[in-house]
């Protein structure tokens, strides 16, 4: 039995070598580990599936069906944010300041009890990864199925002429 298990090492090792080489040269190759500050899980396919527009977010907020999270830096949040948005700076959260998520987590029930309410995260737009960091953090806590990303971020909310709230978190 031990020898049989030992013989299985060879095809596994060959697969590892081939996978490394193929992934390195493939035009659709991905990193072996999520790049710091960004997970491919919240990129591409899943991001598209979880994205939501500013108008939709406004409708959900008015219906009381959204908890909005502003993942930008504090100074940007103070300048203007979605009314009622909870401030959880994504980059600081990623660097280990998990206590910054406490104001949000206090409001959130268990993941199973959350629907149909959606948790909508945003930052400065499609090129900003701060919302993705908060998205990943909440995903790991089990809120994946209720999470949405306002992909075009704060600029889209402003451009739509929607209400703006200013001030401290």
């Amino acid at each position: 039995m031990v020898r049989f298990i030992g013989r299985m090492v060879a095809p596994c090792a060959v697969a590892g070598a081939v996978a490394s080489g193929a992934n390195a040269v493939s035009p659709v190759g991905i990193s072996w580990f999520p790049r710091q500050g960004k997970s491919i899980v919240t990129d591409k396919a899943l991001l598209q599936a979880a994205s939501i527009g500013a108008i939709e977010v406004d409708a959900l907020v008015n219906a009381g069906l959204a908890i909005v999270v502003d993942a930008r830096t504090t100074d940007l949040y103070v300048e203007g944010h979605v009314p009622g948005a909870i401030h959880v700076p994504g980059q600081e959260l990623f660097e280990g300041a998990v206590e910054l998520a406490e104001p949000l987590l206090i409001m959130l029930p268990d993941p199973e009890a959350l629907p149909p309410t959606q948790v909508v995260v945003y930052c400065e737009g499609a090129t900003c990864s701060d919302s993705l960091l908060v998205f990943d953090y909440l995903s790991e806590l089990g809120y994946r199925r209720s999470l949405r990303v306002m992909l075009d971020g704060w600029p889209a909310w402003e451009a739509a002429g929607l209400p703006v709230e200013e001030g401290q978190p």
Partner: protein
Amino acid sequence: MSQCRWVWTWRVLRWALAVVFVAAAVLKIMAPPQFVVDIFNYQLLPLWSLHAMAIYLPWLEVICGVALLIGRWTEEASAILGAMLIVYIVAIASTMVRGISLDCGCFGKYDTGSATVVLIRDVVFLMMAVGIVVANRRRRVTTDVEPPAAEIELAVG
């Protein structure tokens, strides 16, 4: 069962399982990000491992499939694929227990069958993998059987 029938049983099972796994693997190799998402949706593995799984598993399926096709490392390849199938079956069953609705991801974006159908399908594949190991050992046993004593005397004489 005669040696000939064991040999052909072994070959048919090998080729069938090889085609299934190589086809499934190619679809996943062509779209790694989607496979990352599919693995993620099972909510079983930590985030840091998803990329590595999505890169490695399809190529393991390819190598084992090719091994089955060319008739090398057949028992080892069948055992590896069987172990993977057991993991897939447990993962799918766990999603059913936890009430998670998702696409299997086994055949990339083309795999949208219900969890029950996928479970039954994987059990069938597992039986095929076990069948390959059994048929391989049976065909080797029948080829190793000593000829009757009379034939030995004729050969010596």
